[in-house]
């Protein structure tokens, strides 16, 4: 598999990922914006207004029917926070033409071009009705954060932890900013987005890549403006003191989230040390946390460590009985001390490596995983292949993990307390 990456316009980079095992093809377009309060809410809304109607397919129902005609081609729009960037994504998945007996490649690419560049307009701006509908949808989505209790607890932890940093900005934006958005000012922001963002286009699967590139030049030709500056994340923030907060909710189980600063991120060469550190500590059934907190002490069902790869944060999350909170925090703390002391067996290190390597290799068999991997490499400024990432992992020693442990500092503990004990008292 040879990955080709090239500049095809002033702000646009095209990545071609040919692979022959899949029956699915993918084309994805990503716009990169700085994560900032001024833009965040508008950016969260734009992709959803765009998927509401285009010049040729004026309503969402017409769009859906068109996609059904293209053999159930899937359209996904997304807005996500990665490090201190906001990424707006448009992705189409479609069946490989060899199974259809029909050519749909140009139709698919021109449709994606329409979604991005030819929105349905009224009086030269977005359709007021569509903007209002999508504002309601985003409003409900922001309010719905409390519905998924574990997600809510993590969001609260991040909010407290990064209060004065761009990363603390809410992924979907803010209700008070949403109210101020109109079809006019949103359209202005949209124009800015398509002309000043750095853009990645990825093509994956089995198709005529030469033709696909021509179709992209023809149908997804973006205006060439001055590229917006995106600052790299500051990952060396020293917490002045441990921040601890909790909230109570009428739920059955307490949700505990602990946030750490790690002092390194995916832009750095020793990022894979951190990745392995997190696996030994808290990923999978062989991890220290699973073995101690769940298997030895029966205190939880799920416990795990996860990384924010660009901001260099680590989170440990678990669901527990509220009365066991202090005990669980103590046990987690003990395991971090173990890591710091370098009490990592050869076996632990080896198993963590095997897990990471298997996971990277498996990426090759996932249509979306492969596309996401290569996009992420671009974001990190690394451009590693899967094999190169694996080589880096293989070289890591227990000493490297001990060194990693030294820069890991606990920052915030957030606890969403359940009311389960109260039930027992009744």
């Amino acid at each position: 598999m040879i990955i080709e990456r090239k500049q095809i316009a002033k702000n646009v980079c095209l990545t071609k990922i040919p692979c022959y095992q899949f029956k699915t093809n993918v084309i994805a377009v990503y716009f990169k914006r700085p994560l900032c309060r001024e833009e965040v809410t508008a950016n969260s809304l734009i992709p959803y207004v765009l998927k509401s109607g285009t010049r040729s397919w004026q309503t969402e129902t017409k769009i859906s029917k068109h996609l059904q005609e293209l053999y159930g081609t899937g359209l996904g729009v997304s807005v996500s926070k990665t490090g201190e960037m906001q990424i707006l994504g448009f992705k189409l998945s479609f069946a490989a033409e060899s199974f259809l007996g029909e050519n749909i490649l140009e139709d698919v690419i021109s449709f994606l071009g329409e979604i991005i560049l030819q929105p349905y307009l009224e009086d030269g701006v977005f359709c007021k009705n569509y903007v209002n509908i999508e504002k309601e949808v985003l409003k409900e989505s922001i309010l719905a954060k409390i519905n998924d209790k574990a997600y809510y607890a993590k969001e609260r932890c991040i909010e407290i932890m990064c209060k004065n940093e761009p990363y603390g900005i809410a992924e979907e934006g803010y209700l008070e900013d949403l109210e101020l958005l109109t079809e006019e000012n949103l359209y202005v922001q949209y124009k800015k987005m398509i002309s000043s963002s750095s853009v990645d286009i990825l093509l994956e699967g089995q198709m005529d890549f030469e033709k696909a590139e021509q179709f992209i030049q023809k149908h997804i030709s973006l205006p060439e403006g001055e590229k917006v500056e995106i600052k790299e994340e500051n990952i060396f923030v020293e917490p002045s003191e441990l921040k601890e907060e909790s909230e109570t909710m009428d739920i059955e189980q307490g949700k505990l989230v602990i946030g750490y600063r790690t002092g390194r991120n995916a832009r750095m060469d020793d990022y894979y040390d951190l990745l392995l550190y997190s696996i030994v500590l808290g990923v999978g059934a062989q991890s220290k946390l699973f073995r101690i907190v769940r298997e030895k002490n029966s205190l939880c069902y799920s416990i795990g460590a996860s990384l924010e790869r660009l901001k260099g944060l680590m989170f440990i999350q678990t669901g527990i009985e509220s009365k066991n909170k202090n005990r669980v925090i103590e046990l987690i703390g003990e395991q971090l001390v173990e890591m710091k002391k370098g009490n990592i067996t050869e076996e632990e290190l080896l198993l963590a490596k095997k897990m990471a390597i298997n996971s990277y290799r498996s990426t090759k068999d996932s249509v979306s995983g492969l596309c996401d991997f290569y996009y992420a490499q671009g974001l990190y400024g690394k451009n590693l292949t899967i094999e190169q990432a694996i080589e880096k992992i293989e070289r890591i020693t227990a000493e490297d993990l001990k060194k990693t442990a030294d820069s890991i500092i606990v920052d915030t503990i957030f606890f969403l307390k359940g009311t389960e004990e109260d039930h027992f008292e009744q």
Partner: protein
Amino acid sequence: MNNNYFGEKVYHKKLPNNMNVFFMPKEGFTKKYAVFATNFGSNDLEFISPHTGEQVRVNEGIAHFLEHKMFEQKDGTDAFAKFAEIGANANAFTNFDMTAYLFSTTENFYEGLEHLISYVQEPYFTQENVEKEKGIIAQEIKMYQDSPDWILFFNTLRAMYVEHNNRIDIAGTVESITEITPEELYTCYNTFYSPSNMALFVIGDLKWEEVVSVVEKTVKDDNRFDGVIHRLEKEEPNRVMQKEIKQSFPISIPMFMIGFKEHMNGEQKGEVLMKKMITTEIILDLLFRKGSILNEELYNESLIFSPMDCEYNGSRDYGYTLISAESRQVNLVLEKITQCLEKFKREGLDKQDFERAKKSRIGKYIRSLDSMEGIANSYVAYQFQGIDLMEYGNLLFEISLEDCQKRLEEHFKENMKVVSLIEPIEG
């Protein structure tokens, strides 16, 4: 290419011990995946032992509990350890009808396959290891109880079913699992984990002959029997338990789920069941999903904020359609759904929309063939229902507009409908 198999082929062998082995070659893929499953789920609570002829009743949540305990090994380690050692990724799940043990790996596949078959065939339950698990599963049950989607779904089942074990949570309750003993686990194990009641599905860039040879040398014949396990179920009446069920929970917006319960005439399986599934899904496409008139109307009036979730679940002895969404005006949405069903029953489904839905389903089915886990898990689940998943393409082509129209009239009936609601309370 044969018929509508889109370049895929499944090999099958029934071993002398009655176990079914399946294999799908996937050239060019790095990963290999295997799932070893027993036709034993949370619904199986009462049965006649095929070995002793005795009638047995077990505690709620036992299939799931057994799944957890299968990982316990005689030497004190757990089965995950060996998988980790060879760099494989392992897991297991339990649903209403089956329990499945699975792993995937990019290296040492046959070592993993031997381990998968061996550990699932070597139970080790002790007083101590059973007790230890109760605290962990209690936390798992509570985790689900904090999920509004889970509450909404189980309340729907409780409203639909009068006697059927679908009423009971897959993991049981904190109370029911405390009653579980090692003896009870062994009784279930000896009955349901017999090769006669199990199937293995392997997928990856491998050779069929090699797969068979590894399976044959590893698999045991313990507990084999001929025929099928007789499951004892109270007869489920063709009516619903209650029309409506409500609960309050800390959420931001009211949620609803409508359930249409299948009218049963004895057991359903094989092609008959699969046709029910496909026709129902097409109806859901045409009436409620993205691209439908109702979806557009509800969305444009901000009565819903994302397309309604729709699905049909069918099995040997039950079936139901679920339609759910969040809304600030639940009653109005419910009314519009009822009107929509009446309108299409009266005026008929549109031929052009029907053809387009079929075309779309074919493309989506082709794409689904890229997910190894997806195919393997579905294939086994369908196989337990007497369905060959590979026939999906052929059956889809056969289905006519009239089939769907008939299904619409027969399945979506007011008297078999229930509504589950969750109303927000302040945290």
